[in-house]
């Protein structure tokens, strides 16, 4: 069984290889000859293989006696075993060698490797499992689109990158996956390269992709900076070595402010990847991509990478609770803020996108209040119910022939019964109705925030008191942070009220209310785009057929086949019941906590030391009962409210909008954050670029051209001088001039080359000065 652990690299490698086969070698030819099945089989096979291999590897990890296994390994094995953390690292080779001047990696060769431990195991399993389902879903959903091979190749590329991110044994390998998923996200958001995404602003799908990539790059700037600061101070960025470094107390020896800065910078990277304030702006526009992509990348897997990274770094961040306070506050604010935008959005996918941003906020909230297991649990359950709802939305869009606006849906529960009940499962899960998944994870986070006392006794200190920033930050020194827990709880609770409401609204408008499917404007822009798209890639008749069929059956709505329905059914079961493995109410039955305990021990130990041994919560039952009551009240109450407003056609929404026109408009405009960023950053940035280039042309290059002109002028002048003055004045004056000049020159012609050099440089400087004056005039 243990030999399976040597196969860890295959988990990301197989999807990569299939991506190459589909994307570079076979794909276009297979598609041109109508053999799409080959492409699909290869792509799905790769991911399914990764899932099965992951499952076997995890079983191998759990069934092996690691301590004994470690002893059985030869001295220079490429497999490293850490029995305490139940961790295995397989590093087949050193990818980049050492990145510190010390030359030797303190942790042997395990920096560049693949690491399997309980944390990567859960990520691995749900990512490959959901990934496989979404690949299957895509077969039917993408059938009308040209560039099939490209789509599946990108999807596999994404899976490979995501698996590298998860399996990476160091921040360096994690960063490889981190960047990789960013690129795949870019490619897939912009998959429809010739479509307009947003009619109002004229944003194309390519624009949306680019926006996502560059926003993520800004995050990467912060993430890389944090990682490299850590590397410069710790001498390694391997997880195992870093943990040892912290364990031996070296991290405490590092300037505290620098450690805070490093963790915050890494969190800054997470705000981009996981769509938090202030860098969340790319995610709503990421809905320009095909719906399976939104489900896989922009809901279930990639966007949770930031939380995964923070949970992974928990052993370090536990040292800096003040940084975690920032994480919790940002998470809570995002959870609430994004939920408000979800209230008024009309695009079915955008509602889900805002919901995703909001739920990600809860995950950060959990990590921020020192409850990484709860935060990650929400990642896990959310992956199921959000993937389910996105695929459900995709199924609706597919059945309605590319209508995404919920104003043109309604009463679909009879025509699309399976999609209806699976979507409903997602709604009750996210609304936090006991005993479904969202309840166990989200309410646990809120409960932890309220009661775990993580910030007890945390004071801000270590900020510089001198220098420019010292003056700014010095006053915070000594202030306590105990207020953070209850505050984020309160914010989170308000968000938890909004969540069931906008989800209820979405559900009611799509599946109940009145049937408005015929109300769509006759000239459906999307359908048009679609037709043009098929024309542009006109090499397969399939596109035309589909288009023709589209016209015929424009109003015939029927449920799609098993490729779409089976993933929904399976995910629905997950959404309903995946919460049962982590019931915080019954600590003995809380498999989740037990599973992750070896990984989170170090951080908990740090926290326990800080809190004087009282990290464990004293009386969970009382708060839990309260949580159940509030959850029922909030979840059911607001679902009911949404039902009242949207279940049948009423004029309440219009009246509410008319009563608070400004607020309504603000929400519709998404708080005008995009416009604000354009005003504050993007336009000034382009102005700066123009200024820089203008400076280059006028001054830097101008100096050069000026020098050239001056030289030309002086050569004319000297020839003029030669003809008129020298010839004119004759030889008489010459002797005198030469004598005078040589007296001056003699001093310079000392034979010392340094003096020549000085003269040369002075001459050039004088020339430049002349030119500059010339320019200035």
């Amino acid at each position, binding site marked *: 069984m243990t030999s399976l652990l040597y196969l860890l690299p295959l988990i990301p490698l197989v999807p990569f290889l299939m991506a190459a086969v589909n994307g*570079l070698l076979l794909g*276009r030819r297979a598609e041109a000859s109508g053999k799409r099945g080959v492409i699909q089989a290869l792509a799905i096979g790769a991911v399914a293989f990764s899932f099965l291999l992951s499952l076997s590897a995890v079983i191998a990890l759990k069934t092996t006696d690691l301590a004994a296994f470690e002893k059985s390994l030869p001295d220079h094995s490429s497999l490293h075993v850490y029995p305490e953390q139940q961790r295995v690292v397989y590093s087949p*080779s050193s*990818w*980049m*060698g*050492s*990145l*510190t*001047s010390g*030359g*030797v990696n303190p942790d042997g060769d395990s920096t560049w490797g693949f690491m399997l431990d309980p944390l990567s195991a859960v990520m691995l399993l749900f990512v490959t499992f959901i990934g496989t389902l979404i690949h299957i879903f895509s077969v039917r959903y993408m059938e009308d689109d040209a560039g099939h091979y490209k789509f599946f190749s990108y999807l596999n590329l994404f899976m490979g990158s995501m698996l590298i991110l998860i399996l990476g044994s160091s921040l360096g390998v994690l960063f*490889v996956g981190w*960047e*990789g998923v960013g*690129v795949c996200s*870019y490619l897939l958001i*912009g998959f429809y*390269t*010739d479509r307009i995404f947003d009619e109002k602003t004229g944003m*194309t799908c*390519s*624009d949306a992709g680019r926006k996502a*990539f*560059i926003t993520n*790059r*800004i995050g*990467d*700037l912060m993430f*890389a*900076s944090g990682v*490299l*600061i850590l*590397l*410069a101070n710790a001498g390694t960025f391997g997880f195992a070595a870093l943990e040892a470094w912290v364990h031996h107390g070296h991290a405490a020896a590092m300037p505290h402010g*620098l450690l805070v800065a490093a963790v915050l910078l890494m969190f800054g990277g997470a705000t981009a990847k996981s769509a938090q304030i202030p860098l969340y702006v790319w995610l709503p526009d990421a809905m320009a991509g095909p719906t399976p992509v939104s489900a896989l990348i922009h809901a279930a897997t990639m966007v949770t990478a930031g939380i995964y990274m923070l949970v992974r770094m928990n052993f370090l961040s536990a040292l800096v609770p003040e940084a975690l306070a920032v994480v919790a506050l940002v998470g809570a604010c995002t959870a609430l803020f994004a939920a408000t935008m979800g209230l008024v959005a009309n695009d079915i996918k955008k509602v889900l996108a805002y919901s995703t941003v909001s739920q990600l906020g809860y995950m950060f909230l959990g990590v921020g209040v020192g409850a990484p297991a709860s935060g990650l649990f929400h990642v896990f359950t959310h992956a199921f119910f959000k993937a389910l709802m996105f695929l459900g939305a995709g199924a609706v869009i597919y059945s309605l022939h590319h209508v995404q606006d919920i104003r043109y849906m309604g009463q679909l529960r009879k025509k699309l019964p399976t999609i209806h009940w699976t979507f409903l499962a997602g709604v009750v899960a996210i609304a936090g109705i006991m005993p479904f998944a969202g309840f166990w994870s989200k309410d646990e986070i809120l409960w932890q925030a309220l009661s775990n006392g993580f910030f007890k006794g945390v004071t801000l200190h270590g900020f*510089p008191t001198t*220098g*420019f*920033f010292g003056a700014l930050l010095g006053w915070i020194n000594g202030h306590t942070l105990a207020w953070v827990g209850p505050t984020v709880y309160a914010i989170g609770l308000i968000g938890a009220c909004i969540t069931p409401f906008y989800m209820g609204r979405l559900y009611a408008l799509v599946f109940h209310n009145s049937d408005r499917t015929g109300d769509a404007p006759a000239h459906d822009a999307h359908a048009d785009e679609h037709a043009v798209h098929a024309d*542009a890639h006109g090499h397969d008749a399939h596109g035309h057929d589909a288009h023709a069929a589209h016209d015929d059956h424009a109003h015939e709505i029927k449920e799609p086949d098993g490729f779409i329905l089976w993933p929904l059914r399976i995910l629905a079961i997950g959404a309903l019941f995946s919460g049962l493995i982590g019931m915080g109410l019954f600590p003995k039955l809380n498999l989740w906590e037990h599973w992750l305990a070896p990984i989170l021990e170090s951080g908990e130990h740090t926290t326990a030391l800080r809190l004087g041994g009282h990290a464990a919560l004293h009386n969970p039952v009382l708060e839990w009962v309260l949580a159940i009551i509030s959850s029922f009240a909030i979840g059911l109450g607001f679902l009911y409210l949404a039902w009242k407003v949207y279940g049948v056609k009423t004029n309440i929404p219009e009246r509410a909008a008319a009563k608070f026109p400004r607020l309504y408009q603000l929400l519709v405009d998404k708080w005008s954050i995009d416009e604000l960023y354009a005003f504050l950053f993007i336009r000034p940035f*382009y102005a*700066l*670029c*123009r200024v*820089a*280039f203008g400076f*280059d042309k006028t001054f*830097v*290059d101008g100096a*050069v051209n000026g020098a*050239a002109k001056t030289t030309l002028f002086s050569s004319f002048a000297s020839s003029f001088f030669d003809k008129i003055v020298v010839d004119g004045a004759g030889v008489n004056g010459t002797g005198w001039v030469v004598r005078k000049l040589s007296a001056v020159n003699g001093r310079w012609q000392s*034979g*010392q*080359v*340094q003096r020549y*050099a000085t003269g*040369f*440089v002075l001459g*050039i400087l004088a020339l430049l000065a002349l030119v500059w004056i010339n320019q200035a005039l």
Partner: protein
Amino acid sequence: MMSHYLSLLVFFPLIGAVLILFMPKEQTGFIRKFATGWAAIELLLTIPLLMTLIHPILPQIVPEIGMQEGMRFYFVEHGDWIPSLGVSYIMGVDATSILLILLTQLISLIALASSWTAVHEREKEYYTWLLLLHAGMVGVFCALDMFLFYVFWEVMLVPMYFLIGIWGGEKRLYSAIKFFLYTLAGSVLMLVAILAIYFRTSLPGSGAEAGLHTFNYFHWLAQIPFMHFSGSALVWLFTAFAIAFAIKVPMFPVHTWLPDAHTDAPTAGSVILAGVLLKMGCYGFLRFNLPFFPTATVALLPVLLGLCIIGIIYGALCAMVQTDWKRLVAYSSVSHMGFVMLGIFSLNLIGMKGGVLQMINHGISTGALFLLVGIVYEQRHTRALSEYGGLSAQIPNFAMIFMIMTMSSIGLPLLNGFAGEFPILAGAFQMNSEFTTLFGVPYLLPILSVTGVVLGAAYMLWLYQRTMFGKITNEKNRTLKDLNRREWAYLLPLVILAFYIGIFPNRIFTFIEKDVAANVLRYTDTAMKEFPTTSAQREMKLAAEHPAGAPAVAGEGAPALVTAPAAPVETAPTAH
């Protein structure tokens, strides 16, 4: 035993150039095939150099030309040239030059292959100049005698001048003259500095020539620390060399020749400029500036680092607003070369190995980007970005290669750009805190350099989107043809290399590490330790307490490398 291997490498293209001169100029088809074939043979001749990458060979120490223990050069050959002036013929390579020569051979061959359909006038001259240029470039990377180096350095200028001036774009004369004068101005400064040092050197030994001046690189290395130059004189000498090399790199603010030269050069010229010529500046810093003047380097380090950072950001900002495809790539070069120089000036092993690798990477990715521009330019005769758009539907293979090279250029992991950039940044973050702290904010300087990565993504992706995505709006683009076999043949090696270096960088890193530590870092490390700042002293103290942490490289011979350069045979040579 002396081999003439490097001489063969240098002069083989020259023979080809001479042979072309004897061919009738009407036989253009034969001439271009001959030139390309000749360069292909030259590439095959490089196999022994490539083998050193796979099977490391022992460095050669030739004591009679003044090589010290611990230096790492291979294929050394030496002989007299003009003994009365102290001019000798010394050639030798280390890892840096081997990699650069390999790059030169490949880029040169590709440049020749890319010219077949691009150049239709005066082809005989064109291919002669290209082969001549090839010889000059290889020579620059081999020469270990200052006179010889200077000769190659200048020789290489002339062919490029004619390539731009005769076969270039609209403003070709302006750009050619600008390129020539700019480089010449730097070269003249360097010449002055070379002479200033030359007159203080003396040949060691007891023979008839003992005491004469010499241009021998190894004698210079040994004697410069004992020449009694004042601190400021060293700074001036450093500056003279540095300006010459900085113009070539190019570093801000002497970069303005580059956009013009790149834009107006024929495709082959741009590819060679970006691929090889820019690297000569970096190579000059590594080979001459840093080992000759380590103390001046450290003293001027804040300025140099500042120029790197400005170059990285400024080049990227300018690239953002370009409307000319080639000029955009040219400005991106300014930004990327800033990264290379940042790696070199980080003066630690990580940064430097990244810097050396990034030279190669830049040659590959920017070279490929210029080739790609050349392919569409050949068919449409315009470089204006507004003329293009939606090309990915028309020429999908082209779009695919362009995407890969764009990703390589913006430093995507598992492609070559990242393998160079990441160690450079890691090296920059590991510099002493007095160099990385700006305005009182620790690590601000390297963080600023990371913004170059963000900006790089911004302008490259926008370029890609403007040219490749969307619908075809300009009907003329519907006639564009996708890559033909010849184009595939010369692009594919670059694509494969981009992936290979990205996935297996460590083989090249281990190859670079020892040589850079032995030939560059041991000089700068000494200077760094003597640099009178509190944190440097703190590091010294740390090093004394933990001697195990001191060696610069793992593996054999490491401790010996960090010792001070050995004393010269004769101290305090008398010049005047």
